[in-house]
């Protein structure tokens, strides 16, 4: 088992826009980059995929949903299955919550447009050469509104991309 020395840093980075794909419900992006012992995983998704709504939480139920979903996002060990041999430990998890600015004048502003949620995870892998695959079954399980996950990755070995669905959740980096 991994040592759970998890340090969370919950910060908001407003205006963080992404180039990967346009806002499309049911579709999310997963970017993976690694070098040396560091592995960075970025998840970017329309808020609807994660929360089921894209506006400031209006009801208590929605507020609860927001809290549950964000804490689920933080528990990255339940989302990503690393190869055991790689010996990976989460160092930091950063969630960009579009609704963090409560009681602000931007409330209505957020109501009108689409919102996105981003999460970034930094892992340290002792045996990073064993980091040859990643299983994201947990991500699909915990966020069933995500239907398609567009994955791209880069390492010293090169770059590639694939598309995952709820039936096909395994990324083989060496393929």
């Amino acid at each position, binding site marked *: 088992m991994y040592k759970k020395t998890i340090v969370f840093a919950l910060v908001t980075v407003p205006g963080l826009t992404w180039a990967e794909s346009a806002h499309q419900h049911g579709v999310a992006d997963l970017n993976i980059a*690694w070098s040396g012992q560091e592995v960075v995983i970025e998840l970017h998704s329309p808020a609807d995929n994660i929360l089921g709504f894209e506006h400031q939480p209006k009801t208590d139920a929605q507020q609860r949903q927001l809290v549950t979903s964000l804490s689920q996002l933080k528990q990255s060990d339940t989302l990503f299955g690393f190869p055991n041999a790689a010996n990976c430990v989460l160092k930091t998890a950063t969630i960009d919550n579009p609704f963090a600015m409560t009681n602000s004048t931007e409330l209505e502003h957020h109501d009108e447009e689409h919102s996105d949620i981003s999460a970034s995870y930094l892992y340290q892998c002792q045996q990073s050469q064993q980091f040859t695959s990643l299983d994201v079954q947990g991500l699909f399980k915990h966020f069933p509104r995500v239907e398609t996950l567009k994955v791209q990755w880069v390492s010293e070995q090169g770059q590639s*991309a694939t598309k995952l669905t709820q039936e096909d959740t395994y990324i083989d980096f060496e393929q």
Partner: protein
Amino acid sequence: MTLLKIAAKSAWNRKISLSLAMISIAISILLLLGVDTIRKETKNTFINTISQTDLIIGARSGPVNLLLYSIFHIGDATNNVSYMAYQAISTMREVKWTVPISLGDSHQGFRVMGTNSDYFHYYRYANDRALHIKQGSPFVDIYDTVIGYDVAQKLNYQLNDKIILTHGIVATKHAQHDDKPFSIVGILKKTGTPVDRTVFVSLQGIEAIHIDWQSGTRSPLRISAEKASQMGLKPKSITAFMLGLKNKIDTFHLQRKINEYHDESLLAIMPGVTLARLWQSIGQFEQVLMIVSALVLITGLIGLLTTLLTTLNERRREMAVLRAVGAHAYHVIMLFMLESVFVVAGSCLLGVVLLYGMQYVLQPFIAETYGIHLGISLLDGQQILILMVAVLLSILLSLIPGLIAYKRSLQDGLMIKI
């Protein structure tokens, strides 16, 4: 052994219909293997053309479009990148190296690329292979050029030959940069990539030949080659540039940063990711082709079955005699099986020979026209599997006439029919 002999002699009696069946199956095997080879080699050519480049940056358009025009020289850029933006991004903290690419001119149908000598240092293909200069050295002077292997071969160029560049991609007599000839200082080794079909000059060289041109036509004001070289040739814009990072971890972060570049609409793509995406979308088309080829093979095999079944009547007596002299049921079935395997194995052999023959003949043409280098290699596991499946299917199909022949050999053959 006797059985083999009998099968061979019997088949020889029906050599025309069997060899026709063999040829039709051979063609379908050629088709199947050919589609498979082209599919794999095309993919290899594309995947192996660029390696170790983390990002390619151009004016905002589609990622595939940018990749195709900047690296594969297919299609044209919609817009340029200002030299200022190029310099600003080059000096960013995360960036290890950048190499500019300036396209738009040609020489005898080969593309001219303006760049700097870093190109020969940083460009990598086929898993980290660097470019090597076969003869000469990289360009130093403004009117120096380094040419790709195919350019030298096709046009029969030697070092120190003088060449004239043409304005634009299509060769026209009126748009020659004939007042400013370039001299060949280097010839590259073969790479099997579009590099082989490229004429490389410095960015200053590109500036110099266009210094007295305005919006695509030559202005009446002529500036001589020597004069131009003294004019402090500063490029205003380039077509695209390649970028390498100090740490791959920064790739996504820098890509975002460039895509949000405030002064200009830029697009940064990850070449490997774009290629993978492109291939996933082409993949479905490939599958359709493979299915069509497989159907053609099945048609060929059914043709063989038809041939075997139609000869059953002629071979009534043959079977009956064999049975009468003590041949077992499995002997009769084996006879058909042997014949069928013999035909299909022959087809496989013929198909493979045809495949290599066609590859050998078409290779230069395909490389020249489509830029795809068909490497002639041994059959891979998947292709051998295709052949084995064909032989296996032939064995299964041969059971049908075998069983029929066995069933009716006794009562049928020896009875006297009028």
